[in-house]
């Protein structure tokens, strides 16, 4: 199990997820501006440089979260796993990106506390997510009343997404989490990022919501790779997850992930 997690963490830092690479290639085959083309070509070249020099793809190696399905977590001592991962992280040339607390901005010097979360809705699955500030800090939550419609949600979310995603190194993957408590919505928005680009939800209503949201963002934004004006390839995909909500209302959380799509998973 530990080796699987290590492998996912290495890939998160040194490889672009294959589905995003396919998306980038499909963009390069389309009609795009010279600037956007050059940016996308640099993305691909960066991966070769990263692996040749043993330097992560991005200097912001961020915060690491490991997700374990409940059945796998049963057989694991979380504290020991945390230590093993922390020790492996020291070998990956990660930047010391952590400070002691939001209130005391003191660099911890050697990183690295991985966050470990147990996911009751997953089965036989582990995931690793690396969150850099460029994407992480653009995430947000909006709250709706019980009478809000799908149209209301899209109407409220789209302007916020359009304002934020150009700062998250597009093409971005957008994760949406809905329902439950504030914490549930936020976590679901993170889990949605494990979906493959181009794969919509199996529930027809949610799938339609994802398609409508993606279309609305693309129609209303002219930002492409790196947020370039007049770009074609700003948003790669929208994935949404949900749990039941209170009759009075619900939260909708939105998380972004940059073109590196640093959410890797494996069935065990």
């Amino acid at each position, binding site marked *: 199990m530990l080796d699987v997690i290590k492998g996912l963490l290495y890939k998160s830092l040194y490889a672009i997820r294959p589905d995003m690479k396919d998306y980038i290639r499909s963009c390069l085959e389309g009609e795009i501006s010279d600037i956007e083309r050059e940016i996308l070509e640099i*993305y691909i070249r960066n991966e070769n440089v990263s692996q040749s020099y043993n330097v992560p793809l991005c200097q912001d190696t961020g915060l690491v979260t490991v997700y374990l399905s409940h059945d796998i977590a049963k057989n694991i001592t979380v504290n020991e796993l945390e230590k093993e991962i922390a020790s492996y992280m020291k070998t990956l040339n990660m*930047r010391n990106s952590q400070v002691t607390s939001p209130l005391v901005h003191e660099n911890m010097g050697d990183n690295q506390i991985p966050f470990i979360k147990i996911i009751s809705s997953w089965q036989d699955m582990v995931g690793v997510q690396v969150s850099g500030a460029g994407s992480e800090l653009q995430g947000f939550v909006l709250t709706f009343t019980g009478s809000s419609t799908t149209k209301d949600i899209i109407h409220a979310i789209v302007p916020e997404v359009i304002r934020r995603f150009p700062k998250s190194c597009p093409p971005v993957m957008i994760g949406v989490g809905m329902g439950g408590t504030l914490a549930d919505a936020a976590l679901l928005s993170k889990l949605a990022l494990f979906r493959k680009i181009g794969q919509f939800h199996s529930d027809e209503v949610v799938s339609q919501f994802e398609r409508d949201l993606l279309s609305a963002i693309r129609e209303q934004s002219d930002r492409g790779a790196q947020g370039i004006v007049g770009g074609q390839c700003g948003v790669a995909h929208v994935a949404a997850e949900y749990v039941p909500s209170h009759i009075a209302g619900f939260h909708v959380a939105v998380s972004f992930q940059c073109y590196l799509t640093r959410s890797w998973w494996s069935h065990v």
Partner: protein
Amino acid sequence: MFDAQAGSRMLYTGYLYTMRDGTLKRLINDSFQFTDIFPVYFCGPSFKGTLPLGACGPTTTARMEKFFPWLIENGFRVIIGKGSLSRNAIDAIRGKMVYWLAVGGVGAFYGERVKYYETVAYEELGPEALLKVYVEDMPLFVGVDKWGNKVI
């Protein structure tokens, strides 16, 4: 290069200062005096691996907007980072400072362009230390030109 139009591509060779949130906060608190002026690269390198600075791509420039007046007052004419700026920030820098765009998320690619560096101040801040860095053929785009035109 201050006169280049928005959207122009360039390969920059020369010195840069690296700064970001923590650096700028300290510089202002300490009323730091610069003897040389170079473009300011908003970046916090990883310092590890087989390249001089490790990975060192740009960080989000929008977070630094509140420091723009201080940078202008201290004579800086070029800032380099990633991502869009607010309308207010563009108005504030028009004619005084230009914004060059580096490609975000490609820290290894930019790390290869770094030839050497020295720490000027705040080593204890780790990736937020003030560095003087020499780069060769660093690909950049003019994001906001001196007339306030933008591509980002």
